[in-house]
């Protein structure tokens, strides 16, 4: 089995759907769309098994040369190692489930084929990204997923707001990509290759730790990761990206694409280890982002925006883990997050469809009875997101991060506190959303209940959101390390600063308590004392704070004022091209001269004679001047 097949199959699916968009009927499109992903998933599983039995040897396939010029050489090299396998499996399996769900969700969409073509294209690009053996191919996937994200956010193209959100997503991530491109140039300049194993190998020889160049490179790579993963300061595009169809939000903006940054940093962890400053920056960005996004999520009214901010916040956790050197913890959280966030998005989608495309949580409520199945899966998702102890996957992955943010070599007590604050916020906003949607009085009628194609993926994910946590249990609870063992060949184990069982207990207990406390607060806020709370919330200062948070801490406004508006303004005023004015001005001056001189051509005979006389006077004057004076 060739690893290259895994991304190739979805690409072929996308290609077929693009060419045959007129010929296939709805069923044909569904079969190709979902089938290609299923096939990719099967191939991925087979290769993963092969890899597992093979031992630690990565499977690398050179599928062809790409370009070779003047000492620069790259090819289509695909790599399956422990890290890729994790990502590939998550992408194909969750991707498949979301495709199945989408076939139900998008059932009434006239542009059904286009949707699935883009989705398949996305999966292909994403798989390329995580399987690339060189950074250029990774960049190819990186930009490819950006394109698909753009296409799918703007899928309903008739609304200009969607187009705006789509372009914003593309352009903001492109800013990060630019940084990453420069990192590639620098890496090539110093290491002479863009092949990932090669440059990681070389980098340890070339640079010692804390070298200035490697720090810059790591920071630039971080810039790329930050753009794609919607971290501070490039996080603004993700909430707007919710303009796309819900399966898109689930697949691209929750489960897979936005975690590409995590993948990139994990993949190039050697570089970050050489640049502790960059690594600390990563952790700081993660910590700040997770808290800021948590506050923003707390005050949203749109259910999808809550989930979007929560995604930003959860990826913040992953970055925090990466920054602390807890590589496998970050990847572990990626896995569980992919499961429960996809679950939450799709469940939210089910609710939205049921309420006839109503996304405002304050117009929902009391849906517990109406949508009992959705209620349960949503509850599981929320529990996992809020990290309710022992039974949810989210608990194990997040707790590991919280603990390591203090105890790992790169950790700090400040990170730990931020992570704990994040845990409290997560509990609060998650269950605020949950209670608002399912409790209270019924405000909007349910139109129709989701069908099987939408519910089955939800059940599967609900199960995964629960059991996926058990592959990695902390010291205090059984100490299962299946996952980190698996990643051992690629990602080094975390080096600990503090190793105390008691401390770990305390941390876990604290985070669990905070999560539960958050839920309790949410319960009190939404269900128990809605009146009292609303009085509190109506206070002017609180109102202002709510607005400020719900606008995402006004980062949008900041960028508008600093970058977007000046650019647009400058280009507007310069629409006629100032330099052209120079040339047209020159032409106008010539024309003016022409007019002036033409006026001397009066046609009056005496005028001409006067000219002759003037000339004679002048010539004689010069003559006299030169000869006699």
């Amino acid at each position, binding site marked *: 089995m060739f690893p290259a097949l895994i991304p190739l199959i979805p690409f072929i699916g996308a290609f077929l759907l693009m060419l045959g968009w007129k010929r296939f009927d709805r069923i044909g499109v569904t079969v190709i769309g979902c089938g290609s992903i299923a096939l990719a998933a099967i191939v991925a599983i087979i290769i993963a098994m092969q890899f597992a039995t093979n031992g630690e040897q990565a499977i690398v396939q050179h599928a062809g*040369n790409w370009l*070779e010029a003047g000492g620069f050489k790259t090819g289509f090299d695909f790599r399956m190692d422990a890290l890729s396998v994790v990502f590939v499996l998550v992408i194909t399996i969750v991707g498949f489930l979301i495709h199945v769900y989408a076939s139900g969700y998008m059932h009434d969409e006239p542009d059904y084929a286009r949707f699935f073509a883009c989705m398949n294209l996305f999966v292909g690009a994403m798989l390329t990204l995580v399987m690339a053996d060189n950074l250029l191919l990774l960049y190819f996937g990186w930009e*490819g997923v950006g394109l698909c994200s753009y296409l799918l956010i703007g899928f309903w*193209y008739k609304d200009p707001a969607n187009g705006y959100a789509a372009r914003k997503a593309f352009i903001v991530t492109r800013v990060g990509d*630019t940084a990453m491109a420069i990192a590639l*140039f620098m890496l*090539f300049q110093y290491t002479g290759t863009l092949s990932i194993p090669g440059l990681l190998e070389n980098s340890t020889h070339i640079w010692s730790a804390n070298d200035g160049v490697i720090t810059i490179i790591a920071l630039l790579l971080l810039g790329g990761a930050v753009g794609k993963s919607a971290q501070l300061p490039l996080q603004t595009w993700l909430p707007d990206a919710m303009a796309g169809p819900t399966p898109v939000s689930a697949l691209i903006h929750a489960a897979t694409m936005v975690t590409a940054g995590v993948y990139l940093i994990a993949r190039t962890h050697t570089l970050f280890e050489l640049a502790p400053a960059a690594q600390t920056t990563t952790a700081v960005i993660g910590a700040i982002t997770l808290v800021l996004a948590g506050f923003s999520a707390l005050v949203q009214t749109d259910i999808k925006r809550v989930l979007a901010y929560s995604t930003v916040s959860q990826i913040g956790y992953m970055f925090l883990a990466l920054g602390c050197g807890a590589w496998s913890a970050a990847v572990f959280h990626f896995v569980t997050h992919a499961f429960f966030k996809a679950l939450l998005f799709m469940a939210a989608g089910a609710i939205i469809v049921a309420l006839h495309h109503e996304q405002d949580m304050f117009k929902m409520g009391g849906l517990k009875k109406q949508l009992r199945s959705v209620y349960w899966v949503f509850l599981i998702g929320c529990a996992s997101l809020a990290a309710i102890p022992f039974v949810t996957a989210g608990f194990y992955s997040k707790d590991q991060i919280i603990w390591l943010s203090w105890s790992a070599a790169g950790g700090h007590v400040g990170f730990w506190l931020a992570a704990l604050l994040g845990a409290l916020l997560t509990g609060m906003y998650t269950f605020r959303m949950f209670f608002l949607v399912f409790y209270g009085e019924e405000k909007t009628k349910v139109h129709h209940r989701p069908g099987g194609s939408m519910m089955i993926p939800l059940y599967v994910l609900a199960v995964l959101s629960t059991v996926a946590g058990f592959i990695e249990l902390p010291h205090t609870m059984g100490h299962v390390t299946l996952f980190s063992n698996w990643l051992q060949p690629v990602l080094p184990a975390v080096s600990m600063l503090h190793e105390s069982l008691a401390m770990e207990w305390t941390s876990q207990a604290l985070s669990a308590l905070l999560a539960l406390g958050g839920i309790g607060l949410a319960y009190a806020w939404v269900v128990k004392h809605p009146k009292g709370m609303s009085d509190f919330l109506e206070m002017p200062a609180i109102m202002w704070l709510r607005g400020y948070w719900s606008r995402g801490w006004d980062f949008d406004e900041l960028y508008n004022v600093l970058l977007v508006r000046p650019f647009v303004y400058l280009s507007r005023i310069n629409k006629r091209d100032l330099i052209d004015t120079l040339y047209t001005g020159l032409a106008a001056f010539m024309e003016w001269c022409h007019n002036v001189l033409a006026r001397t051509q009066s046609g009056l005979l005496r005028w001409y004679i006067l000219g002759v006389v003037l000339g004679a006077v002048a010539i004689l004057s010069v003559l006299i001047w030169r000869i006699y004076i």
Partner: protein
Amino acid sequence: MILLVLILILFGAALLSWVAGVKSHAASRWIALCSLLVNLGIIAGVWIEHSHSSSSRWWYQFRMDWVPHFGISLHLAMDGLSMLMLALTFFLGALAVLISWKEIQTRVGFFHFNLLFVLCGITGVFLTMDLFLFYFFWEMMLIPMYFLIGIWGHEHREYAANKFFLFTQAGGLLMLLAILGLYFIHKANTNVYTFNYFDLLNTPMTPFMERWLMLGFLIAFLVKLPAVPFHTWLPDAHTEAPTAGSVVLAGLLLKTGAYGILRFVLPLFPAAAAEIAPVAMLLGVIGILYGGMLAYAQTDLKRLIAYTSVSHMGFVLLGAFAFNEIAYQGVVMQMITHGISTGALFIIAGALYERIHTRNLRQMGGLWLRLPMMGSAAMIFVMASLGLPGLGNFVAEFLVLLGSWQANHVLTILATIGLVVATAYSLRIMQKVFFGPCDRQYAVPDLNGRELVIIIALVIVICWLGFHPQPVLNTSQNIDYVVR
């Protein structure tokens, strides 16, 4: 001999299609198309023949005395660079004939005469190794192009045609001065009158003289390229030209400027070129950013695309003066891919104009509903223009930037920021034309068979260049670049 045949076929076909155009429009079109396809076939044959043997740099040489007294000879030669440029010329030329099949209905014979004559001039420019002959062909391109814009253009065609002519002619005269200067300096130093490129290559001269002669050549090529601040003829000419004219202008005429820099400025005046490199690279970067910004502001679709050319050709300038092989390879790539992608965008704009009779972006929107195929094609080329990996432009821009990074960090960073600007203006095209609300209910047909053939050919080429650029890179590798 085969080189002369390439030119003569076009020349003969030009006359023939004019004559035939009197009787039958179709005959004129077929003659033009067939001559270009024959040439394309010849070039393809040449390429296949030479794709493996990298024995000698010059694949073909043809030399015949013309005015021996003054050292002027009919000297043609072909290497990898010429071959690639010629392939692009004939490919885009054939598409230009196809695209004007329905668009041009007046003076059809004369139109094809002019079109083929321009292509003939361009072919000559890419082949000739005699500076006098080079100038001859250089000027020969202009006049038919002037007619193409001035006769079959849009509403402000005369203004645009005059502007185009004045700018390029002024540049051309500077080049003539420089050529004559070089000629006489060579005579003074070696006592031989010659216009031969190879003889002039190592003319000894003072640095002062070299600087001025280099400037003469460089400015002519910068005008053609076009680089800021000589770019202002381009938007007008592109906007007003008929579709075929825009395709030839963007796809080929601009490339003669880039070709001139690679072929003449750098090898003839290596020291002076190295001296001016930072300035030239800066101009390239300014072009990238300034052109992008102007493109973003435009409301006329063709004008927007025209400004993207300014932006893209900035990469050519940046790479050409980076003095390393990766960048040169990128420049050659960029010349080809820009020809394809921008040509395609102009073809789409032309097809759109044929349907809805406006180029104003404000009057478009939501056309995806009616024109999904055209929209998909536009999407591909818009993505190419913003440098999406997998399409040819990415390879080109990446190589240019990778190469120029070795030469100048700051300018490369600025140029890379240009990619963000490219994203902004490129996506604006899609949003304004194909997405957004559909105010006007245009009932227009999607691409027809002929247009589909054109677009598919272009898509295949741009994807091929994106995924497997190696044949092109291998071919252009064979050139003795000036590497510092």
